[in-house]
């Protein structure tokens, strides 16, 4: 019943969009499961114009996707993934190589969109995402502050802003217990030159870099809302929009919301710069992410053909022109807006920040960090003990998962 409703909705959308261009009339059933943020909405809306497309946008997609694609036939023909969530699909072999399809329909793709594993293209990236520095240009101009290039400069700027008392809190942090705080730690840890695991899968976070990262994070929290352990990206975005904070290291995909007059009280006042460096001469303390499309392995070649063709319609120039604020697109024809400059500066910095590692080990490490860090920030545990606890939690999980003997 629900499925029929969705189909009806998709069909009526397709009809109402009638005149809008999809280069061909799609006759085969195509379905996609992806994350639910703005960029995916833009892409799937463009795909729906081709007809017979059923799009499911769900922020819980990462839990559904591996099982749905392992079914035979697969429950979806297309999937929206990122470099973090492609791992289980690659490991289980439930997505297919796209080389022949790209040869047939992918004339408009640029080489850096192709995600290649051992020479086979397994996914087509549509956008990059990264955490970068967003700041209130008006406040920085009033106080005569320069845009901070390192985290130490962030602390100095925060001190000045705090002394001036122009906002409730100088800094917004995405340190909600779990995935978010772990990602903040990852950024800082990589910025201080750390590596998460050794070649033999043993953990390597209880290091100088780990201690530096924790120390810097703790000092940053002094300028943030004390409720930072429940503060996720959406919360920080709202703090920004309501003029409560002056700067934050936030996802590039959140940039568009700052200039959305229906939600934001700071339209036009927010600027973006590269993610700050943790140490001189290092890479910006952040990770690079991409989002893109994969095609299921457990479907017929005809279905794969139609699905990929529809996906290419979703990733065309027309869609990007209409939605240039929604993401840092990799699709040709993209003209970056003002708020995209920070992410682009981050991605093109020398040395460049590394991509988020898509490995099973990293999945376990991310969970261990997210679970063990809060005790340090609530003051229940010292930095050394916390890093040791992370290594211990990771080791237990890795032994259980068969990655460590």
């Amino acid at each position: 019943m629900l499925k029929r409703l969705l189909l009806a909705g998709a069909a009526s959308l397709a009809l109402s969009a009638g005149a809008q261009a999809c280069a061909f009339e799609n006759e085969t059933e195509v379905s996609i499961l992806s994350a639910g943020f703005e960029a995916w909405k833009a892409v799937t809306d463009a795909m729906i114009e081709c007809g017979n497309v059923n799009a499911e946008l769900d922020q819980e997609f990462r839990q559904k996707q591996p099982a749905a694609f392992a079914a035979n036939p697969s429950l979806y023909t297309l999937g929206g993934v990122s470099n973090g969530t492609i791992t289980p699909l690659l490991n289980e072999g439930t997505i297919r190589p796209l080389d022949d399809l790209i040869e047939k329909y992918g004339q408009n793709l640029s080489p850096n969109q192709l995600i290649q594993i051992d020479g086979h293209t397994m996914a087509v990236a549509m956008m990059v995402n990264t955490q970068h520095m967003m700041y209130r240009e008006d406040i920085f101009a009033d106080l005569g502050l320069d845009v901070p290039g390192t985290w130490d400069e962030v602390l100095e700027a925060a001190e000045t802003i705090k002394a001036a008392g122009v906002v409730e809190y100088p800094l917004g942090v995405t340190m909600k217990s779990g995935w978010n705080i772990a990602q903040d730690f990852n950024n800082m840890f990589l910025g201080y030159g750390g590596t998460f695991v050794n070649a033999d899968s043993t953990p390597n976070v209880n290091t100088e870099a780990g201690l530096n990262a924790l120390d810097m994070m703790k000092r940053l929290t002094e300028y943030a809302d004390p409720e930072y352990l429940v503060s996720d990206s959406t919360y920080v975005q709202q703090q920004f929009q309501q003029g409560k904070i002056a700067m934050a290291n936030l996802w590039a995909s959140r940039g568009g919301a700052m200039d959305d007059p229906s939600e934001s009280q700071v339209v036009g006042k927010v600027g973006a710069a590269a993610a700050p460096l943790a140490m001189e001469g290092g890479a910006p303390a952040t990770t690079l992410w991409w989002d893109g499309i994969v095609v299921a392995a457990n479907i017929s070649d005809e279905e794969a053909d139609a699905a990929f063709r529809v996906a290419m319609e979703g990733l065309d120039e027309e869609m990007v022109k209409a939605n240039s604020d929604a993401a840092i697109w990799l699709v040709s024809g993209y003209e970056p807006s003002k708020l995209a400059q920070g992410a682009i500066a981050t991605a093109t910095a020398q040395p460049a920040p590394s991509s988020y590692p898509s490995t099973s080990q990293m999945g376990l490490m991310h969970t261990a960090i997210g679970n063990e860090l809060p005790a340090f920030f609530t003051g229940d545990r010292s930095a050394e003990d916390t890093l040791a606890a992370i290594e211990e939690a990771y080791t237990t999980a890795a032994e259980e998962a068969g990655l460590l003997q």
Partner: protein
Amino acid sequence: MKFRTFAMFVGPSIFLMVLFIAAPLVSVFLQSFQITQPVVEMQEVETCTAGFLTQTCTTETKTVPKLDEFGNIVTTTEWVGLLSYQRVLQLDAVGAAISSGNWGDILNIDFWKALRFTLTFTLITLPFVIGMGLAIAMVVNNATKSMKGPVIFVSLLPFIITPVIGALSIRWLFYGDGIVTVWLEALFDTNLSVAANGWAVEFLMMFYRVWHVAPFAFVIFYAGLQTVNQDTLESAIIDGASRFDRLRYVIVPHLMPLIVFITLIHLMDAYRAFEEVVGFSSQAQRITLQWLTYDLLQPDDAGNRAISRASASAMLTMIGIVIILMPPLRRTWRDHKGG
């Protein structure tokens, strides 16, 4: 009743209980002693990922699971005895904490942290649920007839609301710049950050649970109050018993079986507390045993989930419930035999 009729009535219920309760329980019990792992191998993999302008290609050694000829991951299942229980309980770390004298360190271990909170949560909310339930029942019972309907309706509202929504609505009153927080800040002229204090979050979680469950106790007690023997009450009045004496010596003894019943249900429910952690996002400060099991079961981005430890944690939760239900169950059994 003939056995055949009895079986026809009870059969479907027993069948469903075996299918949905007993069978999963046996499976979880077995899984808590097993570990299923994929067979992995190290492979040199060249990965090219997207940058804004160019691709970056890296060659690294990755652990990749082996696939069989049908494309399924090859797994091995081993019996590991109590290993998963040991990994959940971490008794060696507990021992180290005790021998070094830093007792507080025990509460940094997930299981013991969760157990500490779950127990305090269960035992502190219990008297409040019973007390509040009884108080509302007495008030409604003594209200004038025209008021009874509306008062019952209003008292039942918290019980009708979906648990997570109820928790969220209380969270929104207090977290960030919630209305109540803003009032309190204005009243005491300070700056409050409710979610930054573990004890404040703990208090809110308990407050929510009492608010949510007291109406259930109220309904049961209200029904019980209708059956109090009026003759006994009247003779107590004639004997000069005060309002409190009547409550103490006539009403509460009469309601005792219901109090035990509510205690049983509440202990069972509160020990499995879960919505509070989700609703109040309290995992940085306070976690419950049920949430711990859920967290172990959640797959991470790479698709890993700790099924064996989750099974062990679930079995430990069940054992905990059995232990905590012992006293009221024994009481009921004694009364039953005595009667």
